[in-house]
């Protein structure tokens, strides 16, 4: 009897949710929205959300890469939450796995080929990661991929040199400074224009490196933060091997 009741309840819930979701227009066009190539003014209410971003995004934010415009400008507050989630994950891994005494680690000689190759590649990988997050408002990519690429270059060093370890104090300092930059830029927007993460710097010319106002500043901060957090996670996981 209980099972039948539970099954009926589940089916009812499913039907209710399906009916509710069927009514939501997920990115469909609603009614006669303006042409993409010559947008008519004062017709924003008829436009679907993606169409609005594509039509007015460049003027609203100054960013050429529309994904970045949505992630950092329109939905900047959500990105702050995302960065906080990553920070909490890194703190959790560090508190569970961190080994204070690095000498205890089992030292194992690595291959000469791996050592030389990683010595040559390390700088280029760091440069590529920095390129990805500095050009986040122009080309595909941004803070999260750039930070991950930087962390993978540190992973290469960890694999090649068993005695290498990144200094935790420096990682903590760079991560905290990057997080503070994000929040301070947001608060400056709050002071200057009245809402959090307002784009108060001049937009400049589109497709130039110094354009899009505060978006590059925030993305560099996110890149440094994500890079140091993921490096910290790799460092903590390496410490387990005894």
């Amino acid at each position, binding site marked *: 009897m209980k099972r039948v009741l539970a099954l009926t309840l589940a089916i009812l819930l499913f039907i209710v949710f399906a009916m509710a979701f069927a009514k939501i227009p997920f990115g469909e066009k609603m009614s006669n929205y303006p042409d993409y190539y010559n947008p008519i003014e004062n017709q924003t209410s008829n436009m679907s959300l993606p169409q609005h971003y594509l039509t007015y995004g460049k003027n609203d934010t100054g960013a050429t890469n529309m*994904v970045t415009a949505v992630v950092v400008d329109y939905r900047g507050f959500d990105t702050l939450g995302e960065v906080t989630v990553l920070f909490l994950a890194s703190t959790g891994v560090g508190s569970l796995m961190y080994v204070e005494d690095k000498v205890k680690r089992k030292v194992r000689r690595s291959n000469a080929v791996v050592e030389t190759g990683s010595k040559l590649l390390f700088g280029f990988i760091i440069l590529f990661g920095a390129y*990805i997050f500095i050009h986040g408002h122009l080309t*595909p*990519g*941004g803070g*999260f*991929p750039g930070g*991950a*690429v930087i*962390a*993978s270059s540190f*992973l290469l060093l960890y*694999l090649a040199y068993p005695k290498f370890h990144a200094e935790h104090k420096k990682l903590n300092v760079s991560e905290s400074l990057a997080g503070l930059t994000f929040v301070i830029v947001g608060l400056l927007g709050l002071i200057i224009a009245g809402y959090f993460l307002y784009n108060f710097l001049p937009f400049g010319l589109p497709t130039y490196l110094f354009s899009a106002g505060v978006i590059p500043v925030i993305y560099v901060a996110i890149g440094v933060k994500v890079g140091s957090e*993921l490096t910290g*996670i*790799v460092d903590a*996981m*390496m410490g*387990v*091997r*005894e």
Partner: protein
Amino acid sequence: MDLFTIVSLILITIMIIAAIIAAEIKDLLSAAIASGVMSLVVSILFYMLQAPDVAITEAAIGAALSMAVMIFGIKSTKRWEK
């Protein structure tokens, strides 16, 4: 069939085979490497579907970092699944 369909069908086949290997094999080190191969193929598919930023993230996190973290985990426990 055009080239795009053929290439994506091949990639999807490799991806499914790698996923089945990762779930079924008893050697956990091979399973971690198979899941890394799956992430790499998925990132190529993302690039073909015109999402290059997702492709970069998937390649860096799925193929490099998460595989490395899994291998560190296997190093500190046991390699063979019972």
